[in-house]
């Protein structure tokens, strides 16, 4: 059984067709890198998977664990095990990071009919994770991403990933805006997350992220569909030759 099956997806944003027949199959334990030139539809794919309003699927289907999620609201997709790490995480003044994280974890527990984690244990775990990602635990008292640098926002995304432990993590250009040290910290967090039961989709422009998170598959997206797939060698080839030879 596939963890994720994307079947011949067509999708529009603001009336413009972006995805034009995209297929993708992901098994547990795999890491897939999605690369491609600007405007090829990489971020649209990430948002379509997460169910962002305004991103409309006009044909095709997306199945998570053999269930179609096309009609599901974003929070139900999250409960089913899907996680999107944002390219540009928003700042939410007034909602503390800790409060936000606890609300997220509680919502997952409620959906699974599980016992909520006690506040003290939760705070301890969140602080430990923050420290492990080189993120000042005091930042957890601030508003969500409020006053965070670009790198801190991305590390905060990985903190959420590690807390929520989804089945499928979609990382939308998580490497953008990161210096090399931050990139290593983020990559280490993603590698810590990986196991035989979950999977990762890495949307990225650059091969350098794949030095730290080694993909099983690399796909090139161009004009709304996957035009080439291969292993990590494909990423090296793209780094050398660019995308022109594929389109």
């Amino acid at each position, binding site marked *: 059984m596939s963890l994720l099956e994307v079947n011949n997806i067509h999708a529009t944003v603001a009336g413009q067709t972006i995805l034009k027949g995209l297929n993708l199959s992901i098994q547990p334990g795999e890491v897939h890198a999605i690369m491609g030139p600007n405007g090829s539809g990489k971020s649209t794919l990430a948002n379509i998977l997460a*169910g*962002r309003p305004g991103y409309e699927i006009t044909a095709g289907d997306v199945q998570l664990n053999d269930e179609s999620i096309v009609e599901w*609201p974003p*929070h139900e997709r*999250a409960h089913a095990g899907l996680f999107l790490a944002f390219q540009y995480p928003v700042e*939410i003044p007034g909602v503390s990071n800790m409060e936000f994280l606890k*609300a997220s974890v509680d919502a997952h527990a409620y959906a699974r009919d599980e016992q909520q984690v006690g506040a003290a244990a939760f705070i301890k775990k969140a602080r430990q994770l923050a420290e492990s990602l080189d993120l000042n635990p005091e930042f957890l008292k601030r508003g969500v991403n409020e006053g965070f640098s670009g790198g801190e926002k991305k590390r905060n995304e990985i903190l959420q990933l590690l807390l929520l432990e989804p089945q499928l993590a979609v990382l939308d250009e998580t490497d953008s805006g990161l210096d090399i040290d931050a990139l290593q910290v983020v990559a280490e967090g993603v590698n810590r997350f990986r196991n035989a039961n979950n999977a990762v989709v890495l949307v990225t422009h650059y091969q350098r992220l794949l030095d730290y998170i080694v993909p099983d598959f690399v796909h090139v997206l161009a004009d709304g569909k996957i035009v080439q797939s291969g292993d990590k060698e494909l990423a090296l080839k793209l780094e050398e030759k660019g995308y022109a030879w594929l389109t």
Partner: protein
Amino acid sequence: MAYVAAQWAREPRAPDWVENGDARLRQMTQALNSKQHKERWKYSKVQPVLDLIAAPAAAPAYSPLPEGISEIIYPNTQNTAPLGPDWENAPEATACLFYQPCVHVLEVEGNIESPLLIQHHARSLPLVIRLKANASLDLQETMLQDDEQQVQTLWIELETGARLVHSRNIFSKGQHWQYLRVNVGRDASYALHNHSSGARLRRQDVHICCTQPGANAEICSASLVDKANHLDQQIVLEHSAPHTNSRQTFHAIGNSGARVTFNGRIHIHKDCGGTDATLANKNLSLGTGAVINTKPELEIYTDDVKCAHGATVGQLDDDHLFYCSSRGIPAEVARNLLSEAFLKTCIRGPLADDAHAELQSQFKAQDHA
């Protein structure tokens, strides 16, 4: 039966305490019929407030007065009233001062470490609080929530170097009119933390005057106005001396069918150079049918000042909602979380925890409505 003025569209009835031909009635009538006050009462009916002013009042309940605070009760005739009339700026409040049988005056000296707690019930007699030079006080006002009709007029004077932190939580649901006047003296400092809900009628008049150089005033206000409830905030901040500062931030949420009005005016008089004043009013309109009127105003008669004002009416940010839902937080919970956050940035001071709890319970009540 007397009538306030023929010009009033609905010819509001004068309160029972007004006698025909009374000079003070004429003064109030004249003031209320001015352009300024007609504008002030554009979004609230004046008659219920006049009726509230008219009803018998009682002294509010205080916590035991800490050492350094003394209470004086003035019989309230024109000769003994502790404050001069201000028919022009505050006709209703002045009427309260003159027509209620007495005025309670609290005089504060020194640094008062214990907070002064005031609990209002129903209609309160006018109250004057005077902070002597270099005095400081933490004033906390609450009110019984069950009372159907409530009135308060509070007049505060801060002498040189005095400091007052004033917090008030107002969550009753009946008819409520509240007037607050603060005169801030030289190098004195006044901070108001105002937390409120809407009500069948809730009218908050606030008039703060920075009267001497170095005076500083701050207002931070958070309000949640529920279905079919009303809130009308009329705020004036006057700078009548050079080198004075003010900061005002008002956040309000209007739910379905709520009626929210904000009119905030910064008035900088002549020869008040070096004044620095800001006013921000932000409103969230949630659900359908909420009506939000907002009008921030500047009236500036001096060149060398810094002054900014702004108002917004909007809805919850779609990107914030999606971020929450992408983390598994259901849309309704996310809306409450973000709405609370919007108000939380303006909930401060010693009554903040109580205000949080009350507003949270109101958000939860909406969920179950």
